């Protein structure tokens, strides 16, 4: 793997080391936070480096989530792995299965000399990244949750209240269309927002074996959820009136909302900074709509975002540094600041309370939507999160099949069952590669 060595060298050369760096033990931290988020990450590392003089955390930007994870894996295969790597939530099963390559956070914290309490983390965040026995595997860092963004100016213009249910959403669409405005709703990251979170929100399973938490022999069952099938069909059919407009995968549909074309948009709460920059109208965020056909009240939403995984194969004392750094990072001050400037949720209860004390939610109404959704109820087996192998590919499969639905080539039932079938084949492949 000469390539990854080269990349390492290039990355190292790009980081200016302070004069006393040689006395300090260096901790490599590979992350996927570009732009403004990247600057924030640098600031967090700098804050830690100033707070003590034994360790030097070196953050290195490695591209988007997929690229960062692939780079770390390639580096591991070449024996050049960083200490800490940021991995997105759907990579969890892959990292977890790599026993011997990763050092579980609960283990590292127990071995290190730091005061640390896993209970400090919010249950909805903690549960996603814990073993079924409740042991934390990776450190939650940037977590968000899907919310419904709405164009307040448009809603006010037609005298519509902020929708609470899917029926409300379609009613708002009717009002908008009566006023000559076509598109009411769009969304991004559709597997995450419209399938994974829909099911958690209505306390229904995505897959068997506790959504994969209990073992690799899990199977996807989202195609059996009748409410989901009916809703997706209803959304697809509403394209005829222009109620729904599909704007592409991931965040590609953002311009649909920020240009004012679609009045509502379901996607991550972490788009807060983008909204402030791009939307030239009053906007707000509210909880995900409830499907009253499926459930009477919402359960809780699940997170997206990334965690920090510790890779094995370094000197024992290095891990003391990683543990101290993790402790610093989880402090209420660091977390509350991160939350308020990015729109990611505060991941500890203390940080949430600190943000509240600082009056952030009063000044910026709606910014606590994601965290309120996440902590709405104690997570159940269905709403704790999911742990499927090959899930990056499965999300691609879901994207593809949903696009067949939006194009009118398949019905919701056909698209979902094809997605589940193809997804299950990928799960079996993962199972046989990791046994």
């Amino acid at each position: 793997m000469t390539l990854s060595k080269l990349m390492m060298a290039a990355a190292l050369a790009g980081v200016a080391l302070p004069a006393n760096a040689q006395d300090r033990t260096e901790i490599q931290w590979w992350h996927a936070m570009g732009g403004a988020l990247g600057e924030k990450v640098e600031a967090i590392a700098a804050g830690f480096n100033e707070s003590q003089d034994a360790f030097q955390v070196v953050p290195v930007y490695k591209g988007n989530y997929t690229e960062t994870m692939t780079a770390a894996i390639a580096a591991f295969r070449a024996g050049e792995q960083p200490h800490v790597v940021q991995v997105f939530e759907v990579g969890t099963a892959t990292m977890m299965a790599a026993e011997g390559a990763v050092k579980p956070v609960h283990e590292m914290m127990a071995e290190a000399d730091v005061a640390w309490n896993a209970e400090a983390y919010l249950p909805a965040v903690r549960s996603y990244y814990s073993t079924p026995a409740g042991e934390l595997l990776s450190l939650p860092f940037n977590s968000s949750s899907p919310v419904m963004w709405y164009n307040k100016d448009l809603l006010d213009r037609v005298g519509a209240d902020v929708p609470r249910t899917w029926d409300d959403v379609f009613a708002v669409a009717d009002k908008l269309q009566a006023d000559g405005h076509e598109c009411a709703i769009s969304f991004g990251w559709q597997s995450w927002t419209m399938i994974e979170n829909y099911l958690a929100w209505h306390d229904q399973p995505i897959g068997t074996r506790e959504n994969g938490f209990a073992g690799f022999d899990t199977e996807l069952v989202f195609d059996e959820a009748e409410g989901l099938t009916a809703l997706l069909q209803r959304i697809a059919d509403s394209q005829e009136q222009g109620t729904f407009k599909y704007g592409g995968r991931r965040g590609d549909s953002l311009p649909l909302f920020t240009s004012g074309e679609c009045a509502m948009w379901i996607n991550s709460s972490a788009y807060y900074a983008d909204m402030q920059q791009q939307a030239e109208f009053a906007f707000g965020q509210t909880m995900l709509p409830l499907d009253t056909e499926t459930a009477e009240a919402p359960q809780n939403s699940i997170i997206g975002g990334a965690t920090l995984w510790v890779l094995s194969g370094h000197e024992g004392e290095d891990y003391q540094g990683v543990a101290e750094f993790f402790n610093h990072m989880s402090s209420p001050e660091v977390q509350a600041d991160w939350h308020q400037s990015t729109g990611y949720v505060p991941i500890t209860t203390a940080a949430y309370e600190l943000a509240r004390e600082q009056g952030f939610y009063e000044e910026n109404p709606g910014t606590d939507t994601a965290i309120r959704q996440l902590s709405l109820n104690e997570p159940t087996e269905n709403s704790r999160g999911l742990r499927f192998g090959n899930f990056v590919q499965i999300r691609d499969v879901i994207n593809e099949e949903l696009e067949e639905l939006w194009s009118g080539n398949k019905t919701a039932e056909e698209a979902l069952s094809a997605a589940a079938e193809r997804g299950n084949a990928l799960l079996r492949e993962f199972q046989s590669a990791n046994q």
Partner: protein
Amino acid sequence: MRTKNVTFKSPWLPYLLVAPQLLITAVFFLWPASQAIYQSVLRQDAFGLRTEFVGLANFRRLFADPLYFDAFVTTVVFSALVTGISMLAALVLAIMADRVLRGALAYRTLLIWPYAVAPAVAGVLWWFLFNPTIGLVAYALDVLGYEWNHFVDGTDAMALIVIAAAWRQVSYNFLFFLAGLQAIPRSLIEAAAIDGAGPLRRFLTIQLPLLSPTVFFLMVVNVVYAFFETFGIVHATTRGGPGNDTVILVYKVWRDAFEGLNLGASAAQSVVLMVIVIALTAIQFRFIERRVEY
């Protein structure tokens, strides 16, 4: 034809002279190719902690997958369109540039420019131009009464990647066509003109046959380009969507390896691609080249 035999004094000198080329071939082609073949018969987890020899299972799974066949068809359609459109456009431009007397250098420079733009950058530019919400081209099409949405419409998506891929290649083809046209002796064309042949006739009976080596060469280069170097364009614009409508073979190789972390499946696809290109090149040189007049 006369051939010249060159002899070296030292028997080692010729080997020494070709050594750099051999070394480059070994390091950048033979070694990776052998790695791909080796990986294609293994099943490995992402970190390489567990490796299992599975024989041809990766290939069997590949050929049993109807989507792989779809990707193959998509690739053939895509390559044919990219090659056809970019060569035709380049030929027309080259013929026109060949006739220009004043400011020829400026035209040529401008036409060659796109070739210097990296595919990923070009992809992003096209993404913006054709974005159904904020894109200029999409807006213009909307004015003309066509609702462009490559996120939902597979034909739109295919058109987008074909335009983006062909656009860049037009420059390259233009260079070769222009050079080819300028190498044709003026006296031939003038003689034909004196005999009363019009521009079209002169082109069809004199220029085109004399250009055939260039046409042949460019066809090989363009097909190989469409097969292998268009990953960046698909990645930056459609990401294979909607559905699987724009998943071409090389994009699938990348996706399975770098997003799916499934090295065995991806390596098997690389091997298939390798075989396809070797076969394609062999066919082209064996059968088509014979009919080309040099």
